[in-house]
């Protein structure tokens, strides 16, 4: 396509504006992206301050509450009395490719967010803060293939290693452990509140080297539809 020379300067100005936007005002890009994302709740994240709103997904909340009730019934006596500071945050944007699973949250260093803190959705652990910016922070979710964390499984608190990914699983569970489908999995990793529910065991199998038991998980929410989270600061 051949443009007239008079159109060239318009394109040049747009190029400069876009380059400036990428480096100095990326939040405008996130807003456009929200408009282009079907069912994202246009405008909510851009106008709301942290803590203003929670997604009213009652079904997911109900399932999460059931998971919470289960875990509190089973491990309550062993839980240390912790009262982490909770900071609600909106999801600005998501990692756009399929190599990682990350969420950009609208709370950063100016809200006191620090690297490694737990990120919750309706009471369940969904990730941890991987990178903190001045006004935003990047959360690595449990569906990221790089996410690993010590966890405990079931009422007998069997140790296991949570391995993230599109289909997260628990590895390194002792062969003698009586882990069964339906067992609650909860966090036991350093730097985050102990006992946060992560998910439920859906099935178990023996590892390839026949040394351990492995467990696949189910979750009472869809990570792709999470719009608001809670950052649990302090353990």
């Amino acid at each position: 396509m051949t443009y007239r020379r008079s159109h060239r300067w318009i394109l040049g100005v747009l190029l400069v504006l876009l380059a400036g936007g990428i480096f100095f005002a990326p939040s405008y890009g996130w807003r456009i992206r929200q408009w282009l994302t079907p069912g994202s709740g246009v405008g909510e994240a851009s106008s709301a301050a942290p803590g203003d709103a929670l997604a009213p997904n009652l079904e997911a909340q109900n399932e999460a509450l059931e998971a919470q009730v289960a875990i509190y019934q089973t491990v309550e006596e062993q839980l240390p009395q912790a009262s982490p500071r909770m900071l609600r945050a909106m999801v600005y944007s998501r990692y756009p490719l399929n190599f990682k699973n990350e969420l950009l949250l609208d709370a950063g260093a100016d809200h006191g967010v620090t690297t490694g803190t737990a990120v919750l959705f309706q009471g369940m652990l969904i990730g941890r803060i991987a990178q903190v910016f001045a006004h935003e922070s990047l959360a690595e979710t449990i569906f990221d293939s790089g996410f690993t964390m010590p966890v405990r499984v079931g009422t007998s608190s069997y140790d296991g290693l949570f391995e993230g990914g599109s289909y997260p699983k628990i590895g390194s569970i002792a062969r003698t452990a009586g882990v069964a489908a339906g067992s609650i999995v909860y966090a036991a990793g350093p730097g985050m509140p102990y006992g946060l529910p992560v998910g439920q065991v859906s099935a178990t199998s023996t590892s390839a080297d026949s040394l351990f038991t492995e467990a696949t998980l189910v979750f009472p929410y869809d990570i792709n539809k999470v719009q608001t989270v809670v950052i649990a600061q302090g353990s």
Partner: protein
Amino acid sequence: MMRFILALLFLALAFVLQFWFATLGVFVNFVFAALVAFAFLFDIWDVLFFLLAAIFIINWQPALSPELLIFAAVTVAAYLAHRYSKWEPWAASLAFIVLGLFTLYLAVAPRFLVADFGSFVIDVAGCLMFGGIVFGVLNRRAHRD
């Protein structure tokens, strides 16, 4: 001018499709496919405009990531391939979509290619279809103009 506006509409459609499929857990780089098709049809300034617009919207964090830099480099490489390749543009654009995606995966997450090759195949298939449609429509428009 009409072709430029049509390309903008295709880019917007690519964003909607990419983000919509992502909410379903399926990742196809429609935006990348559109950019490669544009690289074989427009001049460098137009390609740079589309590329910066894509990065502005697709960037998910305040800082530029290595992924997006590779994304940009592959798109510029597609333009250079168009300039110096002797292949038919439609064939070269489709070949470059496959080559570009492979380069992107290899540079960003080589383990992913082995661990989840099926996702790569779905990505390539989706991109070839979308890139082919974008190239076909815009190329036909160019002949009309």
